[in-house]
Each structure stands twice: as structure tokens, then as C-alpha cells.
């Protein structure tokens, strides 16, 4: 379980790191780019909150709620998909 948690944490951190050059490439004044910027910042914050959740539960030896993790991942994927669609528009 621990190794899976670590993998998940690495994936979430990777999402955050990868988004930096992407955000850098966006336009800064048009409304769609700013919307996309907001969505990607939200993705980063959600990733961070999931990492924080996993870390906290690991530290205190509590059970990590699989439902929460699943919901968070679905939310992240939905947001990434929305952002890509917005980019293609």
C-alpha cells in the first residue's frame, strides 16, 4: 500500500511540475487563456491537497480513504480534459 501511495504522490507532483512550462506558454491577456490558467492552478491546488491528505494519513497511521483519492483523481482528469478542450478551442 505504501509503495502505491508513494507512486501516486509522485504522479501528482509530476502533474504540478509539468504544468509550469504549460502555464508559462499561455497568453496573459485574453479571457480563454486566463480561464485555462485558473483551471490549471486549480489542478495544482487539488493535487497538492491530495498529496497533503496522503502525507497526513500516512504520518498518523490512519486509513487512506480510497473513495476520496478516486474522487480527487476523477476530478483532476476531468479538469485536465476541460483544459485541453479549452486549449483546442
Amino acid at each position, binding site marked *: 500500500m505504501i509503495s502505491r501511495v508513494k507512486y501516486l504522490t509522485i504522479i501528482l507532483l509530476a502533474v504540478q511540475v509539468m504544468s509550469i512550462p504549460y502555464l508559462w506558454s499561455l497568453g496573459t491577456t485574453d479571457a480563454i487563456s486566463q480561464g485555462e490558467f485558473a483551471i490549471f492552478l*486549480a489542478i495544482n*491546488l487539488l493535487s497538492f491537497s491530495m498529496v497533503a491528505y496522503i502525507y497526513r494519513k500516512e504520518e498518523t497511521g490512519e486509513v487512506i480513504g480510497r473513495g476520496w483519492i478516486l474522487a480527487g483523481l476523477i476530478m483532476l482528469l476531468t479538469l485536465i480534459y476541460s483544459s485541453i478542450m479549452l486549449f483546442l478551442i
Partner: protein
Amino acid sequence: MEWFNSRLGLSYRFLRPAPLYALNPFYWLGALAVVAFVIQGVTGMIMMLYYVPSPSDAYKSTLYIINEVPYGRFLETVHLYTAYAMIMLAFMHMMRGYFVSVHKRPREIMWLIGMLMGFVTLGFGFTGYLLPWTVVSKSATDVGIGMLAALPQPLSSVLIFLVSGAGGDATQLLRFYDLHVVVLPAVLLVLLTVKMYLLEVHGISDPATGIKEEKRKVVPIFPNVTIYLAQIASIFGAGMLLISAVFPLQLPPEFSPQLAANTVAQPDWYFLWIYQILKFSVFEGPGLPVALSAVTTIFILFFILPFIDKGEERNPARRPRFITLGCIFIAELLALTYWGYISPGQVIPAEQALLVLGSIALVITVLSFLIYTGISKHGTSITGYPKIGARAGHIFVLLTIVGSLGIGGTIDSIAKIAFYSPIEGVEALPFFLGALTLSVILTIRIMSKHKIKGGLKNDK
């Protein structure tokens, strides 16, 4: 973590550890309001670099921020929605405190400080609304300032001078700007410091419905509570960003006296309930001071609540009067806000006001009576809750949703009967009343079946 801890001494016990039960979002509504305040501080300071507080340039500079400044629209939008969130969170924090009696001994002063912080938060909203100098914001602010004239002298003159000055629009905008960016943040920070000190002194208030022994375990502020706060603050921030992405700010037209003459002044949503009360026909003209006194009385009653509700009892299941009054207050507030939103500028006949407000109070009182009667028949302790099966829990949630829709629909139908098409309202009313009644009956049935007494200890 250890790296930060060893350099910054974060685990040094200068802060009281928090009980495990407090790692729950309901205990951190105030903290989230502070997070919203910090976000507003950061976005506001960046906007200050471009904003010009003069009637001729305020709107132009706001448009410049939105259209020309990198990420300007994003900043404006986030600033706006976090302001809304801060007001909403402060209100939820207050009402949660009311229902679980955090205002009782020894936390009376904390309550007073919290109320003052709430007033300052509303002040932020009032002063910030004017700054873009749109026709909507300027007209509504003028109405607000006009109301001050109805207050008794010399209070009226002093307040008008303080917020508006005697130099016309330029002075008014400058005063509002100063209040918004200097005076109110400074006052809020002082109050926040005092409240944090008092929180250290008294600690987090125990749950009003009792507590399991294992939940009494405490965890240190660093890293446990800090990480938990970071986690919920991130989720809150993500929510704000998503709302900002989906509903970007659209600026109304610039203020001009000609345009204002054709615009119905309407305040922002958090003042709509006051606006609606002031539109009741009975409060028109000479009745205005009475309406203002009534609104002021509501604020004063909340402020001095610790000195009114002085009993030792904190359990909501044993405080039917205050719980019912609190529910009526929230329902009336929501109804007045929605009503104010759909009827801008309309004067409301007194009998209609009485019908709507009276019906809501009646429905809540009857519901409250039924629920408290159900509660008192079958008592159990709070520890009885986990015994409810998962299916019963889901049905309970579903019934709560149906009940909420029933309350909303009933209010809506009554409003339609009163103001619009009676036929449409009459058709919908039995449906919603049916849903409401069914949900109440089934809720009481589930509570009876599982011997839930809303937290009361079963002595049998």
C-alpha cells in the same frame, strides 16, 4: 518537514495542540475566511498598482486591469469571488457558532470580537463595491449612504462625513478607497490577533453533542493541523479558481448621472435582505428609521447574544427555542435575499410581506415542533449514530435533500401566489408541501427506528 522544523522551530509548543475531533472542515470555516482575506490581500495589492481612485479614472483603470494587465481579469475575478466567499464563510462560521453555542462561558469576548470582524467584513463589501465606479455600484452606494441620513442626529452627520465627506464624488470615492485598503484591513488584523490570542487561551470548543474518548486525543499544530489546514485551504482555493474560470467578471457600464437615472439601484447579494425589508410599503418615507432600527436591532441582538443566551446547555437537541429562532432567521434571510433579487425597485405591500415572512416562520416552527417531538420520544446518545446502517444514512441524506427542496419550493409557491400567477403557485404548492411532509414523517420514522434523540443521552 524536519528541515523546516529544525530551522524554524515550528514544533515548539507555543501554540496549543488541537483535539483530533477538530480536524473537520466545520471547525475551520473562520480559518478559511482568513484564507480568503489573504487571497484578497494579495490580489488587491497587485490591482492597487494600476487602480486610480478618482471618478474620472476609476472605471477606466478597472477596465485597463481587466483588458491590458497580464492576468488582470483573473485577478479581478478571483478578488471578487473570494470576497463573496469570505462573507459567506464568515456568516456560516457565525451561524455554526450560534447553533453549537460557542458564545457561552468562557468565550463571550471571542464572540464579540468575531461579530466585530463580521461587521468589518461587510464593510469590505460595502466599500469595495463602489470602487469600479459602475452605474450599478455607484447607484447602490448612494442609496446606502442616503439611508444613513435617516439615522438620528448627530450620528447621521458624523457617519455621512466619515464615509462620504463633503467634497462630492471625488471625496466619496477616495474615502471608500482608503477605508477599503487601509482602515478596514488594519482593524481586521488587530481583531484577528485578539481573537487568535483568545483562541489560545480558551482552546477549541468541545462538540456540543458530546464526544467519544478516543477523539479527545490531541495533535500538534505542526505538522498535523498545519497540513490539514493546507489541505482544506487548497481545496477552497481550487474551488474559487474554478468558479473564476467558469464565470469571469463582466463589468457593468460606467456611472453617469444620465445612465443612473434609468438604472434601478440594487445592492450586492449580501445586502439584498436589508434592501428588501426597506422596500416594504410600511417602511416607505417616514417609516424608514423604523426599518433601519429593526435591522440594527437584529445586528445588536446577535452581538449581545452571549448575554441573552446565558444557560449552560449547549446541546442543540435541548435548545429548541434558540435553534428554531436560528432556523427561522436563516430561512427568512434566504427568502428576503431571493425576493430582493427578483423584484428590484418594487415596493412590496405590507400584507404580502406579512404573508411570506409569516408563512416561513410558521412552516419552520411547525417543522421544528415535529422534529423536537420526535427527538424527545426516543432518546439515545450521540454515540448511537454509527449504529445507523449505511442504507439508512443514505435515505436520511436523500430525505434531507427532498425536505430542503420542499421548503424552497413551498416558499417559492407562496411567493408566486402572492405576487405573480396564483394558478401556477397553487398547482405547485401541494406538490412541495407533500414532499416536505413526507420527508419530515420519514425522517422522524428513521430517527425513531434507530432511537436517535439528536444527541440526548438515553437514560433508559
